[in-house]
């Protein structure tokens, strides 16, 4: 906060004190960062240990590393492959994200660039759906899915995840679209560009970083979802989080295996999150914070 001149060797006492405080605060910041990261580091380290080394007290930090936990996760011992749930998760997340983008992009246009009447009310309607727990509508969804034979299919999850992420996406994209310069749009309309052309040829390229961030956040939320996947899927369409909950056995040591599983399943989210880091706040705060 305080800017101390670099070359000042003989600083007055208060400045020197301030400088020392600043060093302590930096140290504290580092400690906080490391403390919060510690469980993650521990997870990764444990995943690389053998089951016996993982389950010692005190923990054996320097134990030799092995990929045994990962091999176990990929079904070496049990013969249960994690690929079907991983592919289910990937399909559900990717397809729903694409659907979200396809629906949210034009909607955001109609809420920012050429706004409909009462666009604020519409915007807040979108947001309010996000604030009401979908679990309260779980039963009707289940019953309808049962009748339409959508239970235990990915498509049901795709529909639900799309509706879950659509409000966030509309809000995010609206805030990105609102930044498109008006002159460009006027020029386009003078040149006779229609809605589709304007959206795909003019607005999309300008707002690409925003669209990408929206896609990543929508992907993360779909990938993480457990409750609906657990209730509405079974053997066929179970997703990675559901697979993870069924992974813990009551017999034998499983800590390294669980940590390996948790690491593998979190990897796509961590990658997406780091990629979207700068826009993460804007997405999570629904575009209210830049």
């Amino acid at each position, binding site marked *: 906060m305080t800017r101390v001149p670099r070359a000042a060797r003989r600083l007055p006492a208060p400045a020197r004190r301030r400088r020392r405080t*600043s060093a302590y605060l930096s140290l504290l910041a580092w400690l906080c960062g490391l403390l919060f990261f510690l469980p993650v580091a521990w997870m990764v380290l444990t995943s690389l240990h053998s089951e016996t080394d993982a389950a010692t007290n005190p923990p054996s930090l320097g134990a030799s590393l092995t990929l045994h936990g990962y091999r176990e996760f990929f079904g070496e011992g049990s013969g249960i492959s994690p690929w079907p749930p991983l592919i289910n998760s990937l399909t559900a997340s990717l397809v729903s994200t694409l659907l979200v983008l396809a629906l949210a992009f034009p909607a955001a246009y109609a809420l920012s660039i050429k706004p409909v009447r009462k666009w604020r009310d519409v915007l807040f309607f979108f947001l309010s759906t996000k604030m009401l727990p979908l679990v309260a509508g779980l039963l009707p969804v289940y019953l309808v899915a049962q009748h339409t034979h959508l239970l235990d299919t990915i498509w049901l999850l795709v529909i639900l995840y799309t509706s879950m992420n659509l409000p966030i996406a509309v809000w995010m994209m609206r805030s990105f679209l609102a930044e498109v310069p008006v002159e460009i749009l006027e020029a386009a309309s003078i040149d006779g560009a229609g809605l589709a052309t304007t959206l795909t040829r003019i607005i999309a390229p300008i707002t690409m970083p925003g669209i990408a961030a929206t896609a990543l956040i929508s992907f993360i939320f779909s990938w993480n979802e457990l409750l609906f996947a657990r209730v509405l899927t079974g053997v066929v369409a179970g997703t990675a989080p559901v697979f993870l909950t069924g992974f813990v056995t009551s017999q034998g040591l499983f800590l390294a295996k669980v940590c390996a599983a948790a690491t593998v399943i979190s990897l796509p989210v961590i990658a997406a999150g780091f990629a979207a880091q700068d826009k993460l706040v804007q997405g999570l705060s629904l575009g209210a914070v830049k």
Partner: protein
Amino acid sequence: MPTQATDASAHGPNGASHARGRTTMDRARARARRAPLLPALVFLIIVTQLPFVATVVISFLRWNALAPENRGLAGFDNYRAVFTDPALRSSVGTTILLTVTVVLVSLLLGLGIALLLDRGFRGRGIVRTLLITPFLIVPVAAALLWKHALFNTSYGFLNGVLTWLWSLFGSDSPPQPDWMTSTPLAAVEVALIWQWTPFMMLILLAGLQSRPADVVEAALVDGASSFDIFRYLTLPHLRRYLELAALLGTVYVVQNFDAVFTLTSGGLGTANLPYTIYQTFYQAHDYGRASAQGVVVLLCSLVVATFALRSVSSLLREESVR
């Protein structure tokens, strides 16, 4: 902000035309404006709002999946059952306690860390990245991590560290608490706080960085202390961001299912409302009562949501003024 400009131009022609008789062209134009919005709006209403309506209807029915032929109107019976059910009443209490604790603690921690990160220092980007990571662990994975790798009595990391510390001082009988059974709710809370502090931190840090620097510098020149600056400049500026972070955090934490389900399976007084609904629905097959619970949850959320929406809307207005 461009929205303002386009907004004005959007209402301009309408205002100029005769207010009474809107011409066909106006109507066609309005329809053209609405067209890109409709798919998203209709989709969302069908998938998220119709189920709520159905839930309200079912909540007044006597309907158990195990006795499907005995279906009929139940009046307020389900609601009576819901409100006299001690399990549900305690789960309301648990939900409130869990949400308030998690949101408050992670908000305070997030504020502290955001203040630390708002200063320039070496490796700031790295520290920020380290801090965000907990938020990016899949919630189920995080819950499993805490349950088995950290809280476990015999080989969890926490008790391992205790063994270490005690052996440093020459003791070989360290305390080995059973975190999950002695303090089950606190265990869930700690795991959630760990995941939600980065969220709060990110929003508050964004708030801090939008604070006008010149005012702070002027105050420094005038000899204001760091505390004064925090109390009279930073905190008032942060108020909206604190509100927003708290309310969005509340919205997400109230709906938490993963941590409760994985860590304690709702046992030992940790069952919150989403978990209780899940249980009623999944295990008891009492559709009517599950729906009545759903309606109660819905009404509670509506109260929180109203406040949250107001906060977001004030931020939105502030943004358009800027």
